[in-house]
């Protein structure tokens, strides 16, 4: 493979990693603070993507995509909040199994809800005008939109880092990761904090969906596809670690993009092999926190 083709493939892998990072960061954030593995997280991604089509259609013109990028994740966050308050909240402190199954039940409901509202027809969304076409990177022609989502992911990563390390909310979340009971004792409303964290996680899933929409065809199975890949990311990187999520996303994205060149039919199998290998050597992932 020529250097140019290799570079192109790595860039493709990185733009895939960008989406994976945004979505998996939401999954990881919720797990870190609440110790809930949210199987329904992929549904937030799918919901975000389909809502983006609706919003961008309603707000015609150059600002359609920007409007979608703001409005769709907000709606997804509200849906997440409703789910947290009505169902998940009752399950904290109970068995992990029940929490896992509850989020699985939510996945089923949201999947069919999207089918109900949008039907079986695949949808698509055009990239915003400022990110159409391609750019020439030292001889490698690369779609401008791919660069746009890589930049977006970097901005979100920076924003999340600032949120966690520079704000009161981030301090509370970090405290919840280590000891929610103690956090409650010092007067923080842990219930409310968990709702906020869950909404934030859902919004990240929604943003990932909106950003992924112009690159893919929107199909009903996309919720299950992305959740398996996000699991691969957070498992390799380690649940609950932002840095681990970034490393995992790059590993999975680039492995897949390169794998598809050399072993077209086995690319996903290679990703899962990497995942099994990491877990066998380091059962909590590269940067993960061991389960209490």
């Amino acid at each position, binding site marked *: 493979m020529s250097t140019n083709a290799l570079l192109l493939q790595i860039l493709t892998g990185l733009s895939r990693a960008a989406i994976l990072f945004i979505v998996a960061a939401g999954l990881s954030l919720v797990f870190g603070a609440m110790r809930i593995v949210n199987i329904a997280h992929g549904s937030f991604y799918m919901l975000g993507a389909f809502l983006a089509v609706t919003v961008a259609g309603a707000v015609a013109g150059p600002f359609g995509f920007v409007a979608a990028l703001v409005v769709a994740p907000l709606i997804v966050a509200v849906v997440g909040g409703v789910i947290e308050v009505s169902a998940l909240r009752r399950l*904290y402190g109970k068995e992990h199994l029940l929490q896992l*199954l509850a989020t699985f039940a939510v996945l089923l409901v949201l999947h069919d809800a999207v089918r109900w509202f949008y039907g079986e027809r695949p949808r698509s969304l055009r990239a915003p005008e400022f990110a159409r076409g391609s750019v020439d990177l030292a001889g490698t022609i690369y779609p401008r939109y791919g660069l746009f989502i890589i930049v977006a992911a970097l901005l979100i990563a920076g924003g999340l880092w600032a949120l966690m390390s520079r704000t009161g909310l981030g301090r509370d979340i970090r405290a919840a990761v280590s000891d929610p009971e103690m956090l409650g004792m010092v007067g923080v409303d842990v219930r409310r904090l968990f709702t906020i964290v869950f909404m934030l996680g859902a919004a990240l899933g929604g943003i990932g969906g909106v950003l992924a929409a112009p690159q893919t065809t929107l199909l009903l199975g996309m919720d299950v596809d992305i959740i398996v890949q996000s699991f691969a990311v957070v*498992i390799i990187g380690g649940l609950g670690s932002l840095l681990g999520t970034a490393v995992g996303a790059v590993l999975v994205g680039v492995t897949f993009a390169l794998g598809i060149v050399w072993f077209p039919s086995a690319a996903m199998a290679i990703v899962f092999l990497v995942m099994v290998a990491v877990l066998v050597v380091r059962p909590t992932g590269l940067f993960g926190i061991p389960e209490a």
Partner: protein
Amino acid sequence: MSTTTTPTRRRSRRPSLATPDWMRPRTGWTAAAVIAVAAPWLVDERQVFVLMMVLILAVFATSYNILLGNTGMVSFAHASYYGVGAYAVTLSALHLGWSPLLGMALAPVAAGALGYLTGLVALRATRLYFALLTLAIGQLMYVVMFQWRTFTRGDDGIHGLRLPDVLGPTLNRYYFLLLLAALAIAIMGVAMRSPFGATLRAIRENRDRAGFLGIKVKRYELAAFTLGSAFAGWAGGMYAIFDRGSFPLLLHWTTSAEPIFVTLIGGMNSFAGPVVGAVIFGLLRDYVTRNFVYWGVVLGLVLLTLILFLPGGTVEGLKRLWARFTGGPPPEGDPAAPDHPGVDEPAPASRGGVR
């Protein structure tokens, strides 16, 4: 005054010395057997296929409950062994020209062997990370089955399996599957009533304490995983005969959710739970999918309701109703730990926690 009623009176079913445990009459199972034999005569032919699916689900879910309810392990790879069982029948017929009956004998062996090998890897982790590792292993097996076109025909699946003439008529096929289901459930029942089963439940109750008692926890977990996989393969073999084919989706991790749902509906804390759940799940799915497209919405809401209000499933609900009716004490073994809002404790080491 009120102290005269003691809860000890419900301990009347003590095993007596005269009849060994396995020979005592079991009213519920006898009734179930009578209904299962009579059922195909009471419904039309299409519904007989629904009943066959119930039989398969009953075996599949009971095999899963060896892990879930008895040992307290959550696995997302269970569908892989189910799928491998189905492919054992179709692939041995396709490449070796074996009869499906011989393939049916191969199914639990192949799935059990694969379960043992993958279990060795998966059991390096515990609890939540074990569950996630099984997800990775299961998906790996799914992708292999999906992509290895020359051997498995990939996405198309294998269809049109030739059955022996005797299995051609629907009724014959039903009774053959009923026989297989009864045999599988009987063997699993004996295993779970044995000291082996009791040891698994000790591990579920408290893994650490079981270890302190000298139980080789990992070895027992691997044995449970292998046994569960073998009978998942058994159920998969039944599926291949039922559907006369196999396809990769049988191995997908979302298929692993089916026995979990079935078990949750029936009740994971009793051996009969998955069987009861299979009947409810199978009939409900048939009814809903024929009358209302959105099965996922119905199933999801039913599950959420059960998880929130009756985590012990139908069997426990019936026991509670019975206790209220007869004025006896409520059933023990309510898996719902006390609610501590907003506080995440270390997982209560009770039944079914992810490990």
